[in-house]
């Protein structure tokens, strides 16, 4: 029986502290030349698709624009259409918010991208109920948090009707939308774009099992990955879908070296660069909910407790629900590791490489992970723009091919072809 094949996607390194802008090799994340270099390299590596994240308001920390990470990005649709001009097979995935867009316009934009790329478009659906972001839009902060997925589902249902209308009139009415008219664009080369989803809540998983073609997950270990994989794919039967109709791709970082020791050293260097002294304090402030600028990043954790009610960072997803428990856990961890400084602790807890080793070893780790059904592949998040994928494509991809678990050529021109998906 042939081996299960690995799917690879690549995140264009953008706005977060994964991107090491202080590295002399770090280029612009907005110049089109960066997108060209990154995309063409991903295509050389036979990746399924590249993917752009989205933010619709600049993040704030303590009431001011967060200034420590890369900030600023081009418009998703516009840059993906331009990338379509300099690539031929690479899928083009864009995160587009379901809250601050309207179905007719969004359907037209995605149909245009899919036609103009010859069938390579993918939509990563994200939801928001965020009044902070809403301040940039007519809608404002109108959405109750519980309605996020309702709106996402109704948005998708409406968009699908438009994409597949093929001349038939549209008469869509739901709690969120009333849409009547004739959609002017015929079905696209893929029928409609590939749908990607990334929510990890129960509601998010259900939405993914029902609707998604690909899932971005964030489960790093084999055990966690297997549990998520089994859970998500297990939910699909209820919707009349087969497990292979969804490709699960955990986000992962990597560090390579010619020897194991060199790879470890590179990994350590990257982690350190991702957490500057100022970034370490800012991360701590997110949990503590107070100004900690007086603390030495090379010193011990603050002896004051977090303010559990405070949220001083806006515009970024908050993963820590209980700051007092986090502080307690971090203090124990710092102690157990022989007295970690603030910066050492933040490096330890926030920025880890999933795959570190020689190209051969990283290929083997990835293959093991996928063959164990912990995922169907990976979305790689390199730490450098635009060259962060170069070494991976040059050295790891051939190793994956040698293992017999990675394509040596694209099977067809569309992203659905790469993912083995039928036309809807």
């Amino acid at each position, binding site marked *: 029986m042939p081996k299960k094949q690995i799917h690879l996607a690549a995140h264009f390194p953008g706005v977060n502290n994964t991107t090491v*802008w*202080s590295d002399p090799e770090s280029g612009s994340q*907005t*110049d*089109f030349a960066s*997108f*060209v270099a990154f995309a063409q390299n991903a295509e050389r590596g036979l990746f399924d698709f590249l993917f752009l994240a989205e*933010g*619709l*308001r*600049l993040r704030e920390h303590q009431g*001011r*624009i967060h*200034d*420590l990470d*890369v*900030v*600023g*990005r*081009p*418009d998703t*649709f*516009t*840059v993906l*259409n*331009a990338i*379509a*001009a300099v690539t031929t097979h690479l899928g083009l995935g864009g995160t587009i918010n379901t809250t*601050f*867009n*309207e179905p*007719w*316009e969004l359907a*037209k*934009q995605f149909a*245009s*991208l899919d*036609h*103009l*790329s*010859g069938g390579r478009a993918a939509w990563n659906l994200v939801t928001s109920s965020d009044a902070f972001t809403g*301040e*940039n*839009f*007519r809608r*404002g902060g109108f959405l109750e948090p519980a309605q996020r997925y309702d709106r996402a589902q109704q948005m998708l249902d409406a968009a699908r009707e438009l994409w597949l209308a093929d001349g038939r009139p*549209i008469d869509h009415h739901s709690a969120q*939308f*009333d*849409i*009547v*008219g*004739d959609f*002017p*664009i*015929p079905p696209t080369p893929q029928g409609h774009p590939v749908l990607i989803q990334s929510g990890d809540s129960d509601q998010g998983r259900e939405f993914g099992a029902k609707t998604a073609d690909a899932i971005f997950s964030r489960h790093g270990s084999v055990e966690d990955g297997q549990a998520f994989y089994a859970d998500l794919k297990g939910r699909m039967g209820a919707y009349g879908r087969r497990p292979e109709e969804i490709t699960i791709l955990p986000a992962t970082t990597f560090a390579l070296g010619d020897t194991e020791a060199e790879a470890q050293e590179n990994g350590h260097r990257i982690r350190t660069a991702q957490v*500057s*002294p*100022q*970034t370490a304090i800012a991360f701590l402030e997110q949990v503590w909910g107070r100004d900690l600028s007086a603390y030495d990043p090379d010193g011990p954790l603050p002896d004051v407790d977090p303010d559990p009610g405070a949220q001083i960072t806006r515009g970024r997803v908050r993963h820590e629900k209980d700051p007092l428990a986090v502080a307690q856990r971090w203090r124990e961890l710092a102690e157990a590791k022989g007295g970690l400084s603030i910066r050492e602790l933040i490096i330890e807890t926030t920025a880890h490489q999933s795959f570190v080793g020689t190209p051969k070893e990283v290929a083997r780790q990835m293959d093991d992970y996928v063959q164990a059904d912990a995922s169907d592949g990976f979305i790689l998040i390199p730490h450098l723009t635009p060259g962060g994928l170069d070494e991976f494509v040059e050295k790891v991809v051939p190793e994956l091919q040698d293992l017999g678990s990675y394509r040596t050529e694209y099977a067809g021109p569309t992203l659905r072809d790469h993912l083995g998906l039928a036309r809807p």
Partner: protein
Amino acid sequence: MRTAHLAVEVSGFGRHPEAWRQAGVPREALLTPAHHIAVAQLAAQSGADFVALPDSFGAGSGLDAVAIAARVAPVVPGIGLVPTVTTTHTEPFHTSKAIATLDLVSSGRAGWEPAVSRTAGEAAQFGRKPAAEPAELWREAAETIEVVVALWDSWEDDAVIRDVATGRYVDRDKLHYVDFSGEFFSVKGPSITPRSPQAHPLIVLRAEPDSLAVAARWADVVRITAPDLSAAHAARERIRAAVTDAGRDPDAVAVLLDVEILLAADENAARRRFDELGELAEETLRVVGSPEAFVDVLAEGAVDGVTAIPLTLPGGLRVLADEVAPRLLAAGLRTPADPAATLRERFGLPRPANVLTGA
């Protein structure tokens, strides 16, 4: 002699609704990138300053105009790209970053033609608000343009500092909230997209009864329609007066006359081809004739230039590129364009100072 500006407008297989019969390819070709690239290449070969890409949410519209512009930008150099983006149903924040990004991917060749959506049909496709009167639509358009321009200025050019010593990637004092609040919407800002190569992509507006004040305040280029050149000249004078009244330099605003064209080797051949297509209401000055007949329109100097609107595509552009462009150069009506020039530079316009600097 003053040189003239030349733009071309392309949509579908040309303005004539029966033009697809002469195109020699199925209508589905309009959905392929190859068609749009070929058309943009011909437009560039004609030496035009920009290609206008109309769009709307109305019946009969095609692919998204910004998408087409972005798709052709990397592979068709040397011509400005001016998509229409409507203001009635689209979020200004999205429009701002889309046009700024078109400027990034085209190395400073982007423009924007704002337009309004008048019909109940378009409103029903969004289901958010009923159709409105033109005066209201243009008040909303004015707000949209104002906030889009403010967002273009919301990053100072040197906002990215990458200061390793302090750990700061960006100087937050050089990023500005626009804090716009108007009759129709409010926008906080700043943009998520940095200031683009031209800072302000070229703003092109059509002169309509209710758009004159908006054009006087914001347009770099005003497009007019007129039945003849003397009416066009009179319209130009009215626009220049309105621009002056708005406190701007009328010489910094180019007035371009829409001219529908169907050109062939001689007038008889052009007339025959027009007759094959069938009658069509004349929306503006129309030249069905020889390349010289079109050159004569520019030579009159009644306006600052023309927007040629081929009745048929891509053939109508081929004549423009092969027959008209050399004649315009020979007559001194056009000068060879600097291929590296930004679209603003082609119109003799400076890169604007950032009004939010120091704010």
